[in-house]
C-alpha cells in the first residue's frame, strides 16, 4: 500500500481544469520526483493533496485512507508536510519561532526535534534569533524545510526547492533531501532541475499539460530519449547547461 497516492485527479483552481486524470504514488522509503515543462501542473498536483484544488474527479489516499475532502490543517496533522515553492516561511518570525510554528500540533516537547533540525541545518542554529525575512534565499529554504520536518512527517512534499538558488545551495539542498530520506521519510518532490533531481530519485513522473506522460524509475528516466530532449539537452531551464556545475555538488 502506497504511503501517498493520487488516483486519477482532474481539477483546477477556478473553472478551468489544470490536471486531467493525473495518477501517481509514493511508496515507503522512496524519493519520487515530478518533472515537466512549465505550466505542466506539477505544483498543482501537489496542492491537490492539501485540498487546495477544486476537484471534479479523483481521490487522494494516505496509507490507503481517502483524504480527498479533508481540510488542509487536518491533512498536515496526519503527517503530510509541505514545503511550498514561495511564501514558505513566516518572514516576521525568527528562525526559531518558525520552527516552533512547524511544531504547533505536537503535544510533546518539540525541543529535541528542534535540535535535530539545527544539526541538519547548522547555519540556522547560529541565526536562530534572527528574523526569517532577513535571511538569504538558501537559508530561507532551510528554514522552510526545517519547519516542515518539525512534525516528524510521514511523508514530505517539496515544491521546487532549488528554484532561484545558487548552484552551491542547490547541491546542498539535494544532499539534505537525501539525508532526510535516509532517515526514513519518503519524499515527493517537484523539480525544474530534472537531471539533478532524477539522479537522487527512485522513481519519477513526467507531467505534460496536466497529464501523465511517462513514469519510470529515476535511472530509467535519465536514460530516456524523450526526457532528454525535453529537459536535459535543450537546456531551456538552465539545468542542462548547468550540468557541468551540477557534477561537483555531490548529487
Amino acid at each position, binding site marked *: 500500500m502506497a504511503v501517498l497516492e493520487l488516483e486519477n485527479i482532474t481539477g483546477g483552481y477556478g473553472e478551468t481544469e489544470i490536471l486531467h486524470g493525473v495518477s501517481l504514488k509514493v511508496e515507503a522509503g522512496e524519493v519520487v520526483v515530478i518533472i515537466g515543462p512549465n505550466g505542466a501542473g506539477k505544483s498543482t498536483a501537489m496542492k491537490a493533496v*492539501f485540498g487546495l484544488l477544486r476537484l471534479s474527479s479523483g481521490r487522494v489516499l494516505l496509507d490507503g485512507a481517502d483524504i480527498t475532502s479533508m481540510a488542509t*490543517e487536518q491533512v498536515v496533522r496526519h503527517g503530510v508536510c509541505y514545503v511550498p515553492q514561495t*511564501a514558505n516561511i513566516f518572514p516576521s518570525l525568527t528562525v526559531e519561532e518558525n520552527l516552533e510554528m512547524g511544531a*504547533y500540533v505536537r503535544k510533546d516537547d518539540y525541543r529535541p526535534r528542534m535540535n535535530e533540525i539545527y544539526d541538519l541545518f547548522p547555519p540556522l542554529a547560529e541565526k536562530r534569533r534572527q528574523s526569517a525575512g532577513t535571511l538569504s534565499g538558501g537559508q530561507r529554504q532551510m528554514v522552510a524545510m526545517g519547519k516542515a520536518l518539525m512534525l516528524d512527517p510521514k511523508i514530505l512534499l517539496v515544491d521546487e526547492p532549488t528554484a532561484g538558488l545558487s548552484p552551491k545551495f542547490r547541491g546542498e539542498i539535494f544532499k539534505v533531501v537525501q539525508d532526510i530520506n535516509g532517515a526514513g521519510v519518503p519524499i515527493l518532490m517537484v523539480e525544474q532541475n530534472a537531471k539533478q533531481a532524477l539522479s537522487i530519485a527512485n522513481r519519477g513522473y513526467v507531467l505534460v499539460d496536466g497529464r501523465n506522460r511517462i513514469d519510470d524509475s529515476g535511472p530509467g528516466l535519465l536514460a530516456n530519449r524523450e526526457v532528454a530532449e525535453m529537459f536535459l539537452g535543450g537546456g531551456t531551464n538552465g539545468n542542462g547547461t548547468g550540468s557541468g556545475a551540477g557534477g561537483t555538488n555531490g548529487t
Partner: protein
Amino acid sequence: MMDFINFHLMPGVILGSIYALGAIGISLTFGILRFANFAHGETMTLGAYFAFTLVQLTGWHPLAVLPFAMILTAAVALGVDRVFYKPFRAAPAIMVVIASFGMMLMIRSVIQFSWGVQLKSLVPGIQRPYILFDALRISPKHMLIVGSALGLMLAVHLLLSRTKIGKAMRAMSDSPELARLTGIDTEMVIRATWVLGAGLAAAAGVFLAIDTHVETMMGFKLLLPVFAAAILGGIGRPYGAMAGGLIIGIAEELSSYAWLGDGPLLAPGYKAGVAFALMIAMLIWRPSGLFRGKVF
C-alpha cells in the same frame, strides 16, 4: 513652553494612547482576517457602555470593572464573528466589509436603544490636576490612562512574543495559507484575534470615556484616526499600530498649537481632519506604512 506641554503634548499623548489601543485591534484583524473592520469603532463604544453599566451596578472604579467590560465586549465580538462574518471566510473580501459596515450600524442602534443617547459620565465629578514643578499639570485620570495603556501594550507584547497563540497570530498575519499548511488551527487563531482586538477596543473606549464622557458616537469618531494609525504603522504590525496611534494623537493635538504667530496652525474644528490627511499621505507615499506591513 508649559502651555505647549500641558495643553498640546500631554493631551496628544493621552489621545495617542487611546488611538494606539484601538489601532492594534484593527491592525491584527486587518492582517489576519484580511478586511477592514468597520464595526471596530462601535466595539470601543460598547466597551465604554458596558463599563458604565458595571460601574452603576457595583460602584467600583472604572479601572476595576475594565477587565469585565473587556470580557463582555470580547464575547460580543466572538458572537458577531460566528454569525455574521464566518460565512464569508472563503468569499470575496468585499462581502465581509459590507457586513461589517452593516454591523457598525446594528451595534450602534442596539447601544442607542438600550442606553439612550444622552451623554453619560463614567467618572463623576471634576478632578483637580496635580501641579508639579510649579507648572506641569498632571491629572490623576490622565496618569491612569497612560499608565494602563502602557501596561496593556506591554501585555500585548508579551502575548505576541512569548505565547504560542501569540506567535501563531503573527504567523497567520504573515500568511494565512502557510499557517494552514503548517497545521495551525486557524479558526482558533481567528477567535483569539477577535478576543484580543475587542478587549483592547473596549479598553480604548473606557479610557476615552474616563477622559471625556460616554456617548453613542464616540467609537465612530475614533474610527478614522484608528484606521489611520493602523495604516501609518503598517497593517499587521501591532507595534507599528502603537507607534502610529501615538503619532496621530500627538499630531492632532499639536496641529492646533500656535506654531506660526498668533493663532492655531489649524483651526480646531479641523482637528479630525489631521488623521485623515496623514492617512492619505501615507497611502500615497508608502502604503506599507512606517514599519512595512502588508499592502493588499
